């Protein structure tokens, strides 16, 4: 089987999310990549070095700069004439584009796969991860999105893919990019952080969240996450949200502070290797999944913890 993997990038650098998708695609067959963007040859060069990669299809066109689904989906659909499976990381970009590709191909997408069980058989989470479904596709071509935490990352060195320039449809003229508000941060990205410190509604407000959570995260070199309640209440921006509909994370250590543990939140972090919970309510559901729990007032315990570490 020949797969075509979507390379996630910002026109300058390939993003890590690509690497788990490469591993998943490798379980299906030959791995080819598609780099669609504008002035993005450097990305294709990085991508060609990823272990196990064959051809890297480079589509360099101003119309693809912001990965607008209206423009890149037809490009990918064209390439599917000579590929059997389109594989994208289940990032917001992948989730935006892949179903559009699937519908153009008249294929039912398999979303957010956890494992490859056969040529056309996969497992995937349903009901916020409270059940795992095994599904078998009957479509001739496959369109798949891959849960990043479920597959190892392919090595970024060792490959010797060949770059091949391709062209596709011009700007569809349906949509245009206006602006982006992307937070610049030195912190590790949530989906690749080894340690995550996450805060919930109990943090009271944005200022308190910052005062309590940030010093601990700094001390541990950790990424910062939040529950939906904390994001909805405006303590932190939306891209901090961990959960069913936010980011799915699986760090070595996840420290949940003042998070009760709604099933929607657990869905996003229960695959973490070690879960530590600090909560003053000893019956909070978070303690049912935590490896280490501390029942305490977080406003006292967290500063003390930060100081003693």
């Amino acid at each position: 089987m020949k797969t075509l993997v979507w390379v996630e990038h910002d026109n300058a650098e390939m993003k890590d999310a690509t690497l788990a998708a490469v591993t998943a695609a490798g379980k299906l067959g030959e791995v080819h990549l598609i780099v669609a963007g504008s002035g993005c040859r450097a990305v294709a060069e990085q991508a060609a070095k990823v272990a196990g990669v064959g051809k890297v299809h480079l589509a360099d066109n101003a119309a693809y700069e912001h990965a607008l689904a209206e423009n890149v989906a037809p490009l990918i659909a064209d390439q599917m004439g000579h590929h059997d499976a389109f594989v994208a990381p289940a990032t917001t970009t992948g989730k935006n584009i892949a179903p559009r590709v699937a519908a153009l191909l008249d294929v039912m997408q398999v979303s957010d796969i956890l494992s490859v069980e056969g040529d056309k058989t996969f497992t995937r989470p349903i009901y916020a991860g409270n059940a795992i479904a095994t599904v078998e596709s009957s479509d001739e071509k496959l369109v798949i999105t891959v849960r990043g935490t479920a597959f190892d990352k392919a090595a970024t060195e060792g490959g010797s893919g060949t770059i091949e320039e391709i062209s596709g449809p011009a700007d569809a003229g349906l949509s245009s990019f206006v602006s982006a508000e992307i937070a610049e941060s030195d912190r590790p990205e949530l989906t690749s952080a080894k340690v995550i410190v996450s805060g919930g509604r109990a943090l009271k407000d944005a200022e308190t969240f910052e005062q309590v959570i940030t010093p601990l995260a700094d001390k541990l070199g950790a990424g910062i996450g939040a529950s939906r309640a904390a994001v909805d209440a405006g303590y932190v921006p939306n891209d901090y949200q961990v959960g069913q509909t936010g980011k799915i994370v699986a760090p070595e250590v996840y420290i949940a502070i003042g998070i009760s543990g709604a099933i929607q939140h657990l869905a996003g972090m229960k695959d973490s290797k070690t879960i530590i919970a600090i909560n003053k309510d000893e019956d909070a559901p978070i303690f049912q999944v935590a490896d280490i729990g501390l029942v305490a007032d977080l406003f006292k315990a967290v500063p003390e913890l930060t100081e003693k570490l």
Partner: protein
Amino acid sequence: MKILVPVKRVIDYNVKPRVKADGSGVDLANVKMSMNPFDEIAVEEAIRIKEAGKAEEIVAVSIGPAKAQETLRTALAMGADRAILVETDDEVEPLAVAKILKAIAEEENPGIVMLGKQAIDDDSNQTGQMLAALMGRPQGTFANTVEVDGDHVTVKREVDGGLETVKLSLPAIVTTDLRLNEPRYASLPNIMKAKKKPLDTKSPSDYGVDTTPRLKTTNVSEPPVRQAGEKVEDVDALVAKIKALGIA
């Protein structure tokens, strides 16, 4: 302008789903069902656009069993004007749902189709994007803010790194994220009024759509269960544990 709002009847978001012992699926017998939360947000947003004088009519659609009427009545009680139930007892996949919605959109000519970004049962996150592809129209997915302006709609989207704003020409497809709005509760008088609002019943074959599933679910199982660990007495004990993990 007309707004089409598809809504799905799903397990209530507060209910913990239970996997059937025979691996055939999730037990939905005697379980509380509600409107998919993202769809509620879509209904609310459509109503707000109408209240702002930018839309004249809101049509709610549901594809599902006869009981999905209740979900449509909820949408009507919130403020939708009329409803269409495409009745089927089969499970209909996003691709087939998108095909049915396309056929309905061709009859209704909505300026915006406003959908939830995903349903909390199958967690597919596909229908809106598929509908946009089939209709050859633009898509504003995971909407955080929606601004209708003449022949365009500007959508601020929740993306992994933060927010992204795109401008789409109408007609367009918009899918809602959590923070777009906070849906209203239907008042009792509106619930009463909703009972008299028109609700048409159709079937997938009325739209010439084959709903045969493309994906066969061969098994549904419980995820690996995490065992609760231990509780430590105080911060000092926690510090020792964290140090033992080698991260500090």
